[in-house]
């Protein structure tokens, strides 16, 4: 059973890896460094930028897929660092957290 689940999580890991690789550095620079330190963008401007349907989609995709990427990678990292088979608990915690994040992202993006 574990082998057949693996494919799903690995596919999400792959998709998340690509999306994170291409988009996270720029987003990180924008929200973590530019906006706080290089002069903020007016609230109205940023709000309307984020509320654009394409922005909503992009934000959801980046957040959800990056979390799912982390979940799979981190689960295997824990196994590599000595938690052996890891067990169902670690898998549930990792994927569960990512799924919660996905739901929260969907909610925030829809109600922006």
């Amino acid at each position, binding site marked *: 059973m574990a082998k057949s689940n693996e494919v799903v999580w690995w596919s999400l890991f792959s998709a998340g*890896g*690509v999306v*994170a*690789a*291409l*988009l*996270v*550095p*720029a*987003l*990180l*620079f*924008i*929200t*973590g*460094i*530019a*906006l*706080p*330190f*290089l002069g*903020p*963008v007016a*609230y109205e*401007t*940023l*709000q309307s*930028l*984020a509320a654009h349907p394409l922005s909503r989609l992009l*934000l959801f995709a*980046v*957040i959800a897929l*990056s*979390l799912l*990427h*982390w*979940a799979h*990678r*981190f689960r*295997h*990292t824990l196994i*590599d*660092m*000595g938690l052996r088979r890891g067990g169902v608990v670690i898998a549930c915690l990792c994927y569960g957290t990512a799924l919660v*994040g996905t739901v*929260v*992202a969907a909610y*925030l*993006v829809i*109600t*922006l």
Partner: protein
Amino acid sequence: MAKPYVRRVPAAWWLKKPAYVKFMLREWSSVFIAVYCVILLVMLARLKAGPEAYHGFLAALRSPGWLLFHLMALLFAIYHSVTWFHATPKAMAPRLGEERVPPALLVAAHYLVWLVLSAGLIWFVLGR
């Protein structure tokens, strides 16, 4: 029938060779990216809540602690990108008819897309 022997691996196995350390750094880059995603979710929530919440959020990010986090996260995110691009030709080798696409070309294409998307995003949000 005897149980198969499972060799004990020391917890610090990955410190033994530089290649292993780089591997671990790459794996842990995903943690920084995940934490950043949570921060991004908080930002969206604050943006939803109104101008005061938004400016309060930015003010909180101006602390040295958060600046340090973001700088480290940025380095790790870039490390993820670079290692991902260079791993792609090993994971998939697309063909153009008979010939395999040269790995360097595949990697260069990723860098180009990365540059274009990053510049586009930065201009889109900050440049108006």
